[in-house]
């Protein structure tokens, strides 16, 4: 093994030691693997009391649906959530990393996190990798200075908006917002509008599908409505199911019994004396 991989604990950050080998394989004609993408429709809007975020739940690997019910709304802080589109590993890693940095910052300052802090940490990271970390995010939250909603592009640029959409279904969702958004929406109107925008992405965009997740953030309170709407249930399952009368042919069977784990109980006694 090369010296770097025996290094424990690892120093953090990316390691590039397999790049040369992978390039050699690509030159020999073997195509690189495709990554899990979240084709996606993600949206956010600001209503009278705070922010509502919404996302679909389909994860794709090329044209195949790899996960029918994944979670695209990631926790950043108790008052800040972030929806992610793009390469799934990148959105998860980047939101986890910034969420940990925010928690350490909260311990250091003794104050609740601000949305602008999360925004700056994310955009600095994404810009420094020049768009190669492919994460497109919709960041929303309510902090001491009010509700905020931002979009972050993979190259590191950001926008601050009253309503935002990202992902392959963003055009479908944006058309719903442009038609029906108005300032000062109530909570129920806001949730209904977000659900409608996500559904428009689910039904019209091939990269988005399955269910609607919604997250409502207000001052001091948040509500994560996982699978708020399930417009695509499996209705075609046959109640009988499959039964296999002819058994599978087995060549060899090996059974390893697992014993009960022995529990060691510390008896509160005195220390040994000489």
């Amino acid at each position, binding site marked *: 093994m090369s010296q770097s991989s025996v290094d424990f604990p690892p120093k953090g950050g*990316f390691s590039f030691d397999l790049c040369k080998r992978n390039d050699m394989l690509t030159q020999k004609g073997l195509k690189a693997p495709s*990554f899990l993408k979240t084709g996606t429709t993600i949206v956010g809007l600001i209503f009278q009391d705070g922010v509502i975020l919404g996302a679909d739940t389909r994860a794709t690997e090329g044209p195949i649906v790899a996960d029918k019910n994944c979670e695209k709304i990631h926790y950043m802080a108790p008052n800040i959530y972030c929806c992610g589109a793009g390469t799934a590993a990148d959105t998860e890693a980047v939101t986890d990393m910034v969420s940990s940095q925010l928690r350490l910052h909260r311990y250091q300052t003794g104050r609740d996190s601000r949305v602008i802090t999360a925004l700056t940490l994310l955009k600095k990271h994404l810009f420094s990798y020049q768009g190669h970390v492919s994460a497109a995010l919709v960041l929303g939250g309510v902090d001491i200075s009010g509700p905020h909603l931002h979009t972050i592009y993979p190259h590191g640029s950001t926008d601050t908006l009253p309503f935002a959409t990202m992902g392959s279904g963003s055009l479908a969702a944006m058309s719903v917002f442009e038609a029906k958004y108005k300032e000062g929406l109530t909570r129920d109107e806001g949730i209904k509008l977000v659900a409608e925008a996500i559904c428009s992405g689910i039904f019209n965009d091939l990269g988005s599908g399955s269910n609607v997740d919604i997250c409502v953030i207000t001052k001091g309170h948040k509500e994560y409505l996982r699978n708020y709407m399930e417009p695509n249930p499996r209705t075609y399952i046959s109640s009988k199911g499959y039964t296999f009368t002819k058994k*599978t042919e087995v060549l060899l069977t090996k059974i390893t019994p697992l014993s009960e784990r022995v529990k060691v109980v510390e008896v509160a006694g005195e220390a040994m004396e000489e």
Partner: protein
Amino acid sequence: MSIFEYNGSAVVAMVGKNCFAIASDRRLGVQLQTIATDFKRISKIHDHLFIGLSGLATDVQTLYQRLVFRHKLYQLREERDMKPETFASLVSAILYEKRFGPYLCQPVIAGLGDDNKPFICTMDSIGAKELAKDFVVSGTASESLYGACEAMFKPDMEAEELFETISQALLSSVDRDCLSGWGGHVYVVTPNEIKERILKGRMD
């Protein structure tokens, strides 16, 4: 040809009632030539945690050795086995570390967690976790496996029925894939025992 099609592989894991099953094919090839018919893709990390790795065989073996190293170190420090969820996060971190020059394999992790609750998950080659409540698949036969599992899976199956279902799903899927097959290797794990079985399949 994709890098994953160099060696060929098929791995699937399914959840049952307080048990899980993980199965793989046994072929090792170099493009269209078969080199071995007894290649081990599924390895035990501890009694209640298994990992199956599909993709480039050299990375399968290297990654497995790195993970066993990290788990042994964890056992020395914590004096206990790793929980499946923790192990999945560890694998995800190790894979994401190589984001721009990744290990060319896709792991399938299956384990029994607290209260003997089964846990399965799969990842792409850069560590994007996909937790599922029913089944996960990976490898060159993954598209057929998705179809077979989607049709044959039932929730809350007991160990014997789970074994039948996962074996049938695996064998029918690898029959439709040139690069995987040559038998099957199935582990069914309940809280009290591990049953390892080698299946007879088409040898073509």
